[in-house]
């Protein structure tokens, strides 16, 4: 009995730690006073968020937008590389103020995080080995498709194909792992936003023609930071309307936003 009580106490303590921490609001003033805007980004997506291993320079649309936000605030910028799973905890804990990391906006996710208007809209595509004999989405019936955790691609593919298709999905930590599994033949297809697929293309693979499911990417931040969120939203809206973002998109070699 004593043991059971102690177990319950430990759990209660864990819950308390988890819910007590990090509830203070971070405002634009706080960031200015700190002098640094902390931004969660990706470092492996050419054209979106990419760290050139040779030069150590970041580049891409998300990097450029983040830099502009910091510039607007008049503060330095600090980039922190995130994964689909770490960015959630990092936003909640306040380790990063905002994240521009290929984060697709969905209604469900809006329950947990704040999203700005989409600065870019990608579409989902499917990459297969040229030697696989898969030439269209119809050929995917009965196959195993690799997706990342925290990705909406699996649901999108299922919705797009509709009834009568049997697909199984394997979820991986990152796209490099999926590519490895695809090359080894552990899975039959790699399904994700086209921007990502382009980064992992090589001579042995091809992207199927059909693209589907618009993936709007927004700036993500903590719901409770209402003032900061409004500030970022206004900037993105402004840059969408005056063509700033479109010019950055073109400069980074990205296709026009998907409409469809």
């Amino acid at each position, binding site marked *: 009995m004593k043991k059971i009580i102690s*177990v319950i106490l430990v*759990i209660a303590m*864990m*819950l308390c730690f*988890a*819910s007590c921490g990090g509830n203070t609001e971070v405002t634009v003033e706080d960031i200015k006073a700190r002098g640094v805007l902390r931004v969660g980004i990706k470092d492996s997506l050419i054209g979106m968020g990419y760290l050139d291993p040779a030069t150590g320079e970041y580049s891409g649309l998300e990097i450029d937008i983040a830099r502009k936000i910091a510039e607007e605030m008049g503060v330095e910028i600090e980039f922190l590389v995130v994964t*689909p*799973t770490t960015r*959630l*905890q990092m936003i*909640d804990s306040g380790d990063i103020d905002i994240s521009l990391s290929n984060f697709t906006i969905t209604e*469900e*996710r809006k*329950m*947990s*995080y704040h999203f700005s208007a989409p600065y870019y809209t990608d579409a989902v595509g499917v990459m297969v080995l040229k030697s696989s004999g898969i030439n269209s989405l119809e050929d995917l019936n009965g196959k195993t498709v*690799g997706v990342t*955790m*925290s990705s909406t691609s699996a649901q999108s593919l299922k919705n797009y194909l509709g009834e009568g298709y049997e697909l199984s999905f*394997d*979820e*991986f*930590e990152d796209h490099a*792992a999926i590519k*490895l*599994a695809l090359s*080894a*033949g*552990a899975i039959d297809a790699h399904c994700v936003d086209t921007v990502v697929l382009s980064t992992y293309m090589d001579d042995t693979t091809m992207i199927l023609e059909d693209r589907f499911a618009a993936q709007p990417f927004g700036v993500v931040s*903590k*719901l*409770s930071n209402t003032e900061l969120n409004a500030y970022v939203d206004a900037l993105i809206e402004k840059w969408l309307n005056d063509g700033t973002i479109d010019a950055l998109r073109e400069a980074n070699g990205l296709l026009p936003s998907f409409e469809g």
Partner: protein
Amino acid sequence: MNSGVFALWRWEALWNARTEFIDAFFVTVKVSVFALILALFLGVLFGLFSSGTNKILKGIARCYVEFFQNTPLVLQVLFMYYGLLYAGVDLSKEQIGVIGLGVYTGAYISEVVRTGITSIPYGQTEAALSQGFTHLQAMRYIILPQSVKIALPPLVNQMVALIKNTSVLAMIAGGDLMYRSNAWASNGTLSYGPAYLTCGILFFAICFPLTYFAKRYEQKLKNRANSSEREVGAK
């Protein structure tokens, strides 16, 4: 709506997805049980090899133990998943879990078994042999009953470590508890708080009873040994 990491509505979402977690829980239990059986078999076998007198068997056992103890489990599992596919061997993820964890933990258990046996002074074996016991009989009636008491605590540690190590399967989309928690936590409403906490509680629910009963059993063995010693003393 409260966006807290442990907000109540997140727990409701988790409750609605409970079958996913229950399925994953049983994948973890299944892999653990079969891997444990394999690990115990390999551990006892190689433990006997490396505490025996046959040099060749001893050499084989040392190679096995050193190789698997000194390379990361993650690497071994990734090798089985990716590497073996290139070699044309297609194992299911659960098979990879059972074999990977079984062989890895077997190496540790064989060390537990070896130290358990060698901690009994060799004089006892000699005494047994001089009384007409065969080597196997000496093991069975004299050495092993004493070794078990010494080896049990570290053995249980290894078992618990094995169960917790099933979480490496998450790296290869293994469908185990860790994988399912990760996947669920990073989908839909992104409610990772309840998902990871539940994952932890479920692991605890498997491991804690194991250590608890092992401790009780160990105590029982010790009490029995003490009382039989007293009996001997009384005579």
